[in-house]
């Protein structure tokens, strides 16, 4: 009797997981596997029955394409710079927001705002603000006497890269801040009492007590942000379309342009597979660090 109830009960559990399994198979597993398959085929989207096997041709193509390597380098520079800035600004902001001040929760709440604003909206407003002739940024810089000539923010290669990095930092620094702030709030105050007795300076207290406590969350945040930032598409594409020329191409834009503009979906997919390999390497690091498997066993 008891055993019967258990079996019937487990059936309900399986019934409950079924929709997830189905949705995951159709909309997550299948597309990823298909992306891997596509990487080994010549695919003409205009002729769906005309796929034929390409072996490693698509990979040979991307590895010998200078634009691929340029996109890779751009993605690395873009990601590296963004992450360093996000971490430095994010941690300083978290320390600032950790202060016990009147009204601080208002500022903490406000911080989430960039995260909810659609990237399209940010890209549009930034294009308007960074407009070389009538944009407010050039006007303000000239007014302050910092520049005498208009800066062409989005149409000179170096400045375009800087502009996309600024957008990325503006939008995602709050992510770092929120995570660090949450961790700061759990640091036991007793740790600081001893230091206060010893008369340690603020800087020393930060380096000796706060920073080691933050180490773990920082590693997790940095791994996560690196993976996501490296694969970002919209933040660059909507602001510069990868331009001027190809100067702000990253791998996601390279893959998109190969698939859409050049109709080489196999090449686009091969780029995707390359990105996924990097991603899985990152995820393995993350899982090792986080070790959620040990706690997760109920």
């Amino acid at each position, binding site marked *: 009797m008891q055993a019967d109830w258990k079996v019937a*009960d*487990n059936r*309900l*559990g*399986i019934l*409950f*997981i079924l*929709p*997830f399994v189905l949705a*995951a198979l*159709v*909309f*997550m597993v*299948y*597309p*990823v596997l*298909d*992306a891997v398959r596509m990487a080994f085929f010549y695919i003409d989207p205009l002729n*769906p029955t005309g796929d034929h096997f390409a072996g490693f041709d698509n990979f040979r193509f991307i590895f010998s394409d200078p634009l691929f390597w340029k996109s890779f380098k751009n993605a690395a520079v873009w990601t590296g710079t963004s992450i360093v800035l996000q971490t430095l600004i994010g941690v300083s902001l978290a320390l*600032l927001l950790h*202060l016990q*001040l009147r009204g*601080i929760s208002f500022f903490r*709440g*406000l911080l*989430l*705002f*960039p*995260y*909810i*604003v*659609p*990237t*399209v*909206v*940010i890209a*549009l*407003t*930034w294009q*308007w*603000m960074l407009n070389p002739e009538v944009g*407010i940024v050039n*006007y303000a810089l000239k007014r302050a006497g910092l520049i005498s000539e208009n800066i062409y923010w989005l149409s000179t290669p170096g400045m375009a890269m800087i502009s996309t990095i600024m957008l990325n930092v*503006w939008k995602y620094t709050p*992510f770092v801040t*929120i995570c660090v702030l949450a961790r700061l709030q759990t640091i036991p105050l007793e740790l600081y009492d001893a230091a206060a007795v010893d008369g340690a300076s603020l800087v020393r207290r930060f380096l000796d007590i706060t920073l080691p406590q933050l180490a773990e969350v920082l590693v997790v945040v940095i791994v996560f942000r690196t993976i*996501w930032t490296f*694969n*970002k*598409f919209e933040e660059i594409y*909507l602001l510069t379309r990868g331009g001027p020329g190809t100067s702000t191409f990253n791998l996601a834009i390279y*893959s*998109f342009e190969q698939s859409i503009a050049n109709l080489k979906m196999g090449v*686009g997919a091969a780029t*995707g597979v390359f*990105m996924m390999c990097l*991603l899985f390497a990152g*995820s393995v690091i993350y899982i090792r660090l986080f070790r959620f*498997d040990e706690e997760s066993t*109920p």
Partner: protein
Amino acid sequence: MNSQFGHAALKVIKPALAYAALLLISYIICFPLIWALSTSLKPSSELSAMPPRIIPQTMTLVNYKHLITGKQQYFGASQGYQPSSAPPQHFMSWFLNSCIVSGGSTLISIVVSTLAAYSVTRFRYPGRRLVPYFSLLGYMVPSIILVFPLFMVMTRLGLTDSLWSLVFGYVSITLPFCMWLLWAFFRGLPLELEEAALIDGASRLRVFFEIVIPSAMPGIIAAAIFSLIVSWNDFLFGRVFMNSIEQLPLTVGVMLFFEGVHVDWGLLMASAVLMTVPMAILFMLMQRHLVAGFGAGAVKG
């Protein structure tokens, strides 16, 4: 004496400095949106006026009127221009499309992942421990990898250019992180109440609807908000899946305002403001839950 004064002064100055820094940062965070709002309220003659003013000299709602009533812009202004494809005409249908697809995909993701999270944390069967790993991996996979294979799936299902393709497309992004968040949340819910009710003879389904769902509500709301934000803000899927102009989601449609000789910045900024409004409302209503969601580590970004 001197040091005492210094100490007291430091106590006053430090909060003042902190507030100054906080105000500066708030300004940096808010300025793009304030500037967009200001631009959207200016008549086109004032757009490039120097010096630029934050408060427009003459305020006008004409840009909003064009978007909402769908006025045909530049009608007959140039030959070969087809009035039927004038972007502002479609603004309201794009807005509605975005509401439908983000609502639809959120509903699906939430129902599916709530059931699954309950199942994974309360029942024992082989493979259940893989679900959270799988979700984590799933939500690390960038959209750019999923979008073309999914496009092929939609073609085969005959769904391209229909809103369903976007609903399902967004499920592929939102489902893994809803699952991850709700799994973490359900794992933290105490079992005692549920067990007591089961022992008292309540059925599993009753326990699920009357005890589990209400206590999981904060987690469900947080997951729903994140899912709404992600699908409302997406550009890539809409760009790849949709063809006909009236079927586009807002994000893709608005980018069409750039096509043509003359970019109407007033109109663009008005669209930017209107596009942000639903998210801003959601943001203000649900701030508490958002922070909870960030705490649970469920952020796609």
